[in-house]
């Protein structure tokens, strides 16, 4: 009986080794799988941090474009856009913690745009102030390299049209409808001033002209005022600052109805 037990123990010692080897193998393989899963997770986090970084960078470039257009539309030099974007690019290069970051830009130059800006204030019934630039972002990080091309377009547009009705003698009641757009979507105006042409010069419309501005809250404004002029065709000019401080001007011709 004792002999059998000893034999059994001797045999089971070999089995124990196999079981131990199996356990170690399972341990090693599960550790390997775990490490692999972790590395996958780390990659997805890198992608997330890069996408967050790109989101923030696009926001900053857009703000720089708005600032530049506000400056240019208020009489600033056209090279302000390039100067501001250069400055922003330098800041990104100096402090980015994802790796080496290079932000290159090309302000649009074509039949409309000059050095990335376009001010169209002489077309009848419409005024446009716009800035456009193409960007190339290159990030060389520890985890990954990213190259991204994108464009930023900042455009403020106003449309204006109207008519007048004769009150008595040369006195006329002018009714205008003005729409403000940012990037083609209805937007609000911060400040509006109006002028009419009298005796060959632009005369400002003020409270003495019974100026009334109705804000519909959706980018549409109804304006009415009275003028005293002998001309049967009335030229009116609208000069508007949108909420981003971008200046836009548009002229329209009003006829009697």
């Amino acid at each position, binding site marked *: 009986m004792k002999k059998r037990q*000893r034999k059994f*123990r*001797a045999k089971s*010692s070999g089995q*124990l*080794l196999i079981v*131990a080897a199996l*356990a*170690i193998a399972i*341990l090693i393989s599960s*550790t390997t799988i*775990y490490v692999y899963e*972790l590395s996958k*997770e780390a990659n997805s*986090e890198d992608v*997330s*941090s890069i996408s*967050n970084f790109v*989101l*923030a*960078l696009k*926001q*900053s*470039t857009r*703000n*720089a474009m*708005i*600032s*530049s257009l*506000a*400056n240019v539309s*208020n009489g*600033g030099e056209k090279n*302000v856009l390039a100067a*501001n974007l250069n*400055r*922003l690019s*330098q*800041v*990104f290069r100096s*402090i980015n*913690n994802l790796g080496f970051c290079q932000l290159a830009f090309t302000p649009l130059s074509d039949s409309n745009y000059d050095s990335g800006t376009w001010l169209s204030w002489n077309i009848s019934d419409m005024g446009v102030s716009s800035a456009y630039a193409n960007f190339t972002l290159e990030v060389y990080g520890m985890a990954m390299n990213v190259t991204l091309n994108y464009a930023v377009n900042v455009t403020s547009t106003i449309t204006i049209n109207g008519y007048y009705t004769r009150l008595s003698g040369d006195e006329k009641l002018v009714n205008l409808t003005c729409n403000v757009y940012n990037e083609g979507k209805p937007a609000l105006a911060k400040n509006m001033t109006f002028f009419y042409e009298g005796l060959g010069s632009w005369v400002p419309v003020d409270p003495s002209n019974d100026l009334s501005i109705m804000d519909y809250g959706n980018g549409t404004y109804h304006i009415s005022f009275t003028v005293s002029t002998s001309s049967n065709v009335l030229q009116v000019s609208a000069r508007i600052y949108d909420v*981003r*401080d971008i200046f836009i001007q548009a002229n329209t011709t009003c006829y009697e109805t």
Partner: protein
Amino acid sequence: MKSQNRGQIRIIEAFLAALIIFSSFAVSSNLSVRQNVKKSEDLASIGLQTLVKLDSDGSLGKYIDCGNWTALRDALSIVLPAGICFNLTVYNDQMHQVNTAVISNGGFGSQQIAFVQYICASQSMVFRCYIIHLHLAVAT
């Protein structure tokens, strides 16, 4: 010989048991560290998205341009989820501190502190660039 074998088996068993216990310790501690890192990264993501949201209409730059630190603190308190402590510092592009008042909603009791660096370009006619350092922690 048989008694020697028996001893060797005991040693192997003991070794295996020790190995299993230590490896379980190693794996579990690694897991908890990873979870902490993940929570911190989530917090950083929330912080960055908050700053982007405030900056989307130019409010962030306006508060800084005007030096309206109280409004900036209030805006952050509103946009950030409840239960998150923050401390924000604004630098100019020369890395000189701009904010003259503390922009924070309380002390940091948590060990998990997330850090967010954000570049804010103001929309004002005079272009300014600010570097924002935002520290976030879960309130305890």
